[in-house]
């Protein structure tokens, strides 16, 4: 049936034969996903509540344990640390455990590949000593980062008498990763939505995204600096360090025991 005497113009009644060519925009989706997952990591970390132990104590304990575990010549001490780390890991949520193992396993596999030649040439010990140590270290860092808010971690760096300007840079970096990541996501989504069919200029558009983000960041940093000056910033940055809490005594006791064990196992035998 043909509609006559209608108000529909001629060109609208014509059948459209346009079918857009398939476009390969996998790279945009992939970069989007990557940034999104990173941002969601930031968001979930920001939503973190105060953990049982203070961040400050955890940071000190983590660094101390990594040093002890890497310098110990006695393998048994490394096994003890392994047991401690496993127990700590078993108290976390399944989701967090998966995240931590997901980063510790590749690190262990990678170090195993590096040690492989030595292993094949007959040094079988190295396989256990190096790989296990790497696994333990990365797991400890993972536990630390999963259980503590990152702004508290940077704040706790004061314990090591890091210059304030360093901590300021750290703080700003973490914040700006978040903001710039958001900007990137928005722009990439815009490119995707505005591309119909095959868009050969998408690659150049992506470099445009990077350029724009950089310009924006520059502008933002100037604005931030201006805002800080207006609020009386005189170049000195006093970051309040996080406090110890009463649960930290448990960490302290474990640390003392481990240090004594380290000394006993490495020097007294």
């Amino acid at each position, binding site marked *: 049936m043909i509609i006559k005497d209608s108000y529909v113009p001629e060109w609208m009644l014509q059948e459209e034969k346009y079918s857009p060519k398939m476009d390969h925009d996998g790279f945009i989706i992939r970069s989007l996903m990557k940034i999104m997952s990173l941002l969601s990591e930031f968001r979930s970390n920001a939503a973190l509540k105060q953990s049982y132990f203070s961040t400050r104590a955890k940071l000190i304990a983590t660094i101390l344990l990594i040093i002890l575990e890497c310098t110990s010549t006695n393998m*048994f001490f490394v*096994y*003890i640390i*392994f*047991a401690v780390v*496993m*127990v700590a*890991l*078993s108290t*976390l*949520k*399944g*989701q967090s*455990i*998966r995240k931590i*193992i997901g980063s510790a396993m590749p690190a262990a596999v990678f170090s195993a590949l590096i040690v492989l030649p030595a292993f094949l040439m007959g040094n079988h010990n190295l396989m*256990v000593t190096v790989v296990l140590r790497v696994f333990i270290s990365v797991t400890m860092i993972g536990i630390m980062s999963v259980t503590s808010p990152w702004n508290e971690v940077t704040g706790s760096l004061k314990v090591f008498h890091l210059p304030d300007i360093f901590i300021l840079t750290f703080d700003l970096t973490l914040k700006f990763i978040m903001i710039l990541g958001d900007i990137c996501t928005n722009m990439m989504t815009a490119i995707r939505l505005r591309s119909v069919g095959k868009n050969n200029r998408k690659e150049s558009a992506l470099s445009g995204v990077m350029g724009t983000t950089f310009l924006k960041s520059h502008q933002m940093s100037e604005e931030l600096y201006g805002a800080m000056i207006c609020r009386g910033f005189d170049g000195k940055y006093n970051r309040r360090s996080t406090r110890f809490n009463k649960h930290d005594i448990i960490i302290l006791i474990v640390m003392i025991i481990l240090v004594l064990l380290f000394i006993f196992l490495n020097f007294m035998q």
Partner: protein
Amino acid sequence: MHIPENYLSPATCAVMTAVMVPVWVHAVKKVNTEIPKKDVPMIGVGAAFSFLGMMFNVPLPGGTTGHAVGGTLIALLLGPNAACLAVTVALLIQALLFGDGGILSFGANCFNMAFVLPYFGYFIYRLIAGKSEKKSRQLLGAAVGSYAGINLAAFCAAIEFGIQPYLFHDAAGKALYCPYTLNVSIPAMMIGHLTLFGIAEIVYTVAVYSYVKTIAVNKVSGNAGKMVSENGIVDNSQNIKKKPIFILMAVLIALVPIGLLAQGTAWGEWGSDEIMKITGLSYVPAKLGTGWSLSSVFPDYTMAGIPDAIAYIMSAIVGVAIMIIVFKVASSLIKGKTDYQVK
């Protein structure tokens, strides 16, 4: 009861593993539907109890040792399907990390200890305890169930050992794998399990079960006497308190070195280096001596140059922690179900 590497022929191992596959699939499916996501880590706790129970070796005059398995215990607390998975994971960690039980014979070990033991033990428990609310009847059921379970499991292990020389021997009639026929292996396994090891299993099961039921179960919810409902579904309406359970676990870990007092190796678990001396056999079975085996991180729960007791405790801690980690990760992988019935 851990069958080591090379005591069973690869063919036997393959058959036993093939038998276990549908059991595992069934257990995983059932656990997925029956046990709420938040309780899945409790299976890890159950596995940890089984793992610890297996570390308490009980000596039998004559130089062999044995231990409780605790499969029935987990079945009573969480249902037989969860018990199957829990014991499977405990056995896997023992095989991979501590060299207790073989990798190839893993399927056979699971058949005995993760399938026969918990399901049969649970079946007997239900037969005796039924729907009774009386505590004495439940404990009686737990005792008889665990005793029956471990003995049937040991009997299965004895048959697996015993059929090896009939099926696999060289031209001279020397056995290639386990050298003992049924008329030796059955009495050797059963005497221990009918007496001391069976009693150890009863004591372990009843003690932990009554502890968990009297102390760790929230009385608030009312029906504290009933942990598993008629069709084996874990009752949601009550919570198992975690703290007393972890205290019990810590105590058990600290006590683990008691298991070292029992010197000697369990029947049928000798290494190829000790088999001639202990059994008085005139030869080492060909495949048993030269077969493939994995070198584990902590062979027999010990470490060179470290006092056995400390290494034993360390093994217990690492084993327990890894099992809890495994089931926590598993529970995070399960998609949460929304139960619209619950308000």
